[in-house]
């Protein structure tokens, strides 16, 4: 018998710590090789830690939400059967296993690729086929004493729940812990039994962990360090929309459907080539602005767990269809939580777009340490005075924020006006200079 120490692995790129976001095992659990033990979050990507051995968990360090330095022992696993002489506590530097990512191109992986758990080794846990009828007998009749084990009764009592109101899904209408959970949850959202309007004095504490904590920290950092200047301009999108509709109408097979985003991205590439100072990262501690040749555009995307920013790398080297394809792929991966860490970092400028929810004006928060963010507002048909009459035009506002320490108002305005010109006459976007 030997005890193996599981340390928080080095997550690379000089990251010294990571946030623990999931525990999959408890002390006393038996684990198999390759079983996922825990998950940590670095940047905005979640990294799973697999077990290198089979054995019993004897020690667990850290709670969900804790920031843990790499190299810290987080688990001890007692292995069975293998006598390891003279090696009492072999330290195991764990390789990383990324969660499944969509269409990962091998060359994109800079880190050693580790074999993922083989599906065959996963203990099959098929849910009972729903076609099997549940032999639950007759449910509880009206007015009958509720049937619940003592532990459920005690919980209900402490929560002030009358068990007669709780539907039991167990055999013979028995009320299970799960039934009670369901009932308690449904009560949180305004009980169906409430008569009239009731004041709700409930206070629910939600621990800010994981992605939410990342977002909070990032936003606070950006807003406290960067003096924002936000500049709003309207853009006549009529011509671009005409072009877009035509391009989508004459779609060739294999070509993605175009949204406004790829047009904007290409316009940004063009405008940036004239104003490279916009596509930069400002290291304010070192006092250095790094202007990038490559235009790596972050696309703010909403996912079930919160805001993430997947990055379209080298937009300057992608044509409009490639841009569209990459945006679609990344937003899908972000939504499924399968985006790789490197796909969620490394942007040099960001687009914030809420589509139909885009509103009229927004004040986008710069993705620190970038210096600019372009906010896309809602597209709508508005009356436009063409000098003789009002004509209906498809109008859209761009609300863009800039780091006023390094971008002057003049530069900001010049950049946005250039974007406006490009998008109002979209042929310019495609003119090679």
């Amino acid at each position: 018998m030997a005890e193996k120490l599981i340390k928080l692995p080095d997550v690379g790129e000089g990251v010294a710590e990571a946030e623990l976001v999931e525990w999959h095992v408890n002390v006393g659990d038996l684990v198999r090789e390759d079983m996922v033990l825990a998950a940590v979050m670095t940047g905005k990507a979640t990294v799973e830690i697999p077990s290198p051995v089979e054995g019993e968990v004897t020690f667990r360090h850290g709670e969900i939400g804790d920031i843990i330095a790499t190299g810290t022992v987080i688990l001890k696993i007692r292995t069975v059967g293998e006598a390891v002489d003279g090696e009492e506590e072999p330290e195991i530097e764990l390789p990383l296993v990324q969660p499944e990512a969509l269409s990962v191109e091998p060359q994109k992986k800079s880190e050693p690729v580790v074999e993922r758990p083989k599906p065959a080794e996963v203990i099959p846990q098929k849910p009972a086929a729903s076609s099997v009828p549940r032999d639950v007998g007759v449910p509880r009749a009206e007015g009958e004493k509720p049937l619940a084990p003592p532990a459920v009764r005690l919980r209900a009592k402490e929560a002030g729940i009358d068990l007669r109101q709780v539907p039991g899904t167990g055999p013979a209408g028995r009320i299970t812990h799960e039934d009670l959970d369901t009932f308690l949850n449904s009560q949180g959202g305004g009980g169906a039994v409430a008569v009239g309007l009731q004041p709700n004095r409930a206070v629910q504490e939600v621990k800010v962990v994981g992605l939410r904590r990342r977002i909070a920290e990032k936003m606070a950092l950006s807003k406290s360090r960067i003096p924002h200047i936000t500049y709003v301009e309207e853009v006549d999108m009529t011509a671009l929309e005409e072009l877009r509709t035509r391009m989508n109408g004459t779609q060739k097979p294999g070509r993605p459907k175009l949204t406004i985003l790829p047009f904007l991205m290409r316009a940004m590439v063009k405008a940036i080539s004239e104003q490279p100072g916009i596509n930069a990262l400002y290291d304010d501690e070192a006092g250095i602005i790094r202007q990038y040749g490559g235009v790596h555009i972050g696309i703010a995307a909403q996912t079930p767990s919160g805001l993430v920013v997947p990055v379209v790398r080298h937009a300057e080297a992608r044509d409009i269809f490639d841009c569209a394809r990459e945006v679609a792929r990344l937003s899908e991966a972000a939504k499924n939580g399968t985006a790789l860490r490197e796909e969620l970092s490394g942007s040099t400028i960001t687009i914030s777009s809420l589509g139909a929810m885009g509103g009229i004006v927004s004040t986008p928060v710069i993705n620190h340490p970038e210096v600019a963010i372009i906010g896309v507002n809602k597209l709508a048909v508005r009356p436009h005075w063409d000098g003789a009459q009002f004509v209906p035009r498809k109008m859209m506002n761009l609300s863009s924020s800039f780091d006023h320490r390094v971008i002057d108002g003049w530069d900001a305005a010049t950049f946005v006006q250039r974007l406006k010109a490009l998008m109002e006459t979209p042929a310019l976007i495609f003119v090679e200079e």
Partner: protein
Amino acid sequence: MKEITCKLLVIGAGPGGYVCAIRAGQLGVDTVIVEMAKPGGTCLNIGCIPSKAIIHAADDFAKTVAMAAGKNAMGIKADNPAIDLAKTMTWKDGITGRLTLGVAGLLKKAGVKIVVGRAKFRDGKTVAVETETGEQVIRAENVVIATGSAPVELPMLPFGGSASPSGAKVISSTGALSLTELPQRLAVVGAGYIGLELGLAFAKLGAKVTIVEALDRILPLYDTQLTQPVAKRLSALGVEVLLGTKVKGLSSSGEALLAETGSGEEKRIAADKVLVTAGRKPVTEGWGREELELDMDGRFLKVDEQCRTSMRGIYAVGDVTGEPMLAHRAMAQGEMVAEIVSGKRRSWDRRAIPAVCFTDPEIVSVGLSPDEAKAQGREIKVGQFPFAANGRAMTLSAEEGFVRIVARADNHLVLGIQAVGAGISELSAAFGLAIEMGARLEDIAGTIHAHPTQSEAFAEAALKALGHALHM
């Protein structure tokens, strides 16, 4: 003496009172308990525990006597068995002594202050205790009345009484449990569980026992199916049971108990001792109830589902609150009240209180009997499995008895479980758990019961109710 003030005062250190005090102490409630005798109450000192000790000794002795008489099928022989009853009592006292000391230790460990003396209410918040060193006044925010119960005395047979100096002494169960000499002839009045437990024990010890019961059956709380094996055993031991017979008193010479049978026939039962076990009554006098305004429920103190009496801050637990007068009910109530006093939300929600008769054979009943279930208008299924078909029972020479399960016909929810058989009291745990957890017949049938044990009869009874017993 300096007044004591506390958050919780418990009157009576029987099972209900001491459990209440220990739990309250554990929860950090400032608690005082008053007891006029030894901690442990009737149960530990003059009830459950000492009676089980005597029953066990009598069992062992009876087996040895049977061996000596060549009636042992296993081929065990013995010569001249004898019992030194005084020594048996010393052994029994050793057990109760250890247990009462244990309870005192547990109270101390929980930080409960023990005051020895007789408590009397002055008002709803104040109690005066007569102690050896004078009167101790205790003021408490909450008071728990746990005064218990006492044997019922019959007017024509007062305890300790005898018609002549040489005549038979009338004793209660307390007296019977401290006899150091075996009465040659013992008359027992009452064929409830106490009369039968003790009657059987003294018969096994060698006394000629006659049991007189006014009703026309023994153990009236149980159906005849359950009591039949006990009746059989009584007859095998030569115990005479006079049913439908009323006691009249002692004869003038004092050497016999006079009774009248249902047909009006006079009966004269020669006896050295008369044991009266005509039930128990709650102790509702002698502690100042007259100073309070407590609602009654018949002869018991009225309590609600949180054991609150009609007066704010006064609770009552145990036998003083009603039937069934059982130690484990009192303990559960006491624990609940302690938690309520400490601020937790609790109320009485138990589905079943097991009842056990330590007769020979033992009887266990949890939940509803078939008759009770039918009386509630329920469609039921009943499964019964005899120990005669159980291997372990055979190896124990204990084939008498059965396990019976009563379940709802529609959803197979178990409503009650009864059993009669040797050592069956230990199965009460499984029976109680099944009912509290809301088990269905399928749950019991689907639980692996170890072989070879008597508990297999439990699973078989469930299978029987489902229509497919395996070993029948």
